[in-house]
């Protein structure tokens, strides 16, 4: 299995729902063809360096995934068919990747991200408590403390 990275520029004037459907469609194609999606990065609307299809802005999306050559041909065929995609580019990142190792890494990354999020939330919850201790109810404080404690346990694991 090979690691690829595809950047495509979607139409910037799409409705949010239509855009969501479009992304889902490409994700489905990826899974159908036996690809493993590692990262789906939405860069949002950005200014283009030159006009594409009379448009000076574009919605950038970057996908990192493991797959085979047939997956790329199928994905690019769909990019070409779809009017909502202005441009795309696929780059080979690694020539030989073990699918199992890739899956494990994705899981580990997701876990680390979730932990970081929980930590940030805990910090956020604690910050106002420190600033105005009178305003908060004692019940809320207790729950916050419990959350923080569970977070620490997860980290220990």
């Amino acid at each position, binding site marked *: 299995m090979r690691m690829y990275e595809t950047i495509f520029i979607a139409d910037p004037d799409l409705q949010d729902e239509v855009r969501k459907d479009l992304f889902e469609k490409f994700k489905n194609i990826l899974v159908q063809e036996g690809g493993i999606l590692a990262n789906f990065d939405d860069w949002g609307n950005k200014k283009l*360096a030159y006009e*594409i299809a009379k448009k000076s802005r574009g919605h950038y999306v970057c996908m990192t995934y493991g797959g085979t050559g047939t997956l790329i041909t199928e994905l690019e065929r769909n990019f070409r068919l779809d009017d909502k995609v202005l441009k795309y*580019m696929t*780059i080979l990142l690694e020539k030989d990747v073990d699918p199992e190792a890739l899956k494990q890494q994705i899981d580990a990354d997701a876990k680390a991200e979730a932990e970081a999020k929980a930590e940030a939330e805990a910090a956020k919850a604690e910050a106002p408590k420190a600033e105005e201790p009178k305003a908060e109810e004692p019940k809320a404080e207790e729950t916050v403390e419990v959350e923080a404690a569970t977070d620490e346990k997860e980290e220990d694991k």
Partner: protein
Amino acid sequence: MAFQRRNTKKRFYQRRKVCRFCADSTLEINYKDGKALRPFITERGKIIPRRITGTCAKHQRTLSTAIKQARTIALLPYVGKLS
């Protein structure tokens, strides 16, 4: 006489430029970061030769592919405007 004159003419010398990617190994060349590639292209969008920027051969090679990839996906211009 002629020999002497040439010697005096050649006297000026330039400070040796150092490849900034070799000097700082944390710097990465990535086509996704268009802003970081800006110093290596002219206002017109041309790739600046390494004899001017001082980049080493290895890094100039990766740099030029990165710039070309960034151009493909419209992060950098093929033809820049005069500003």
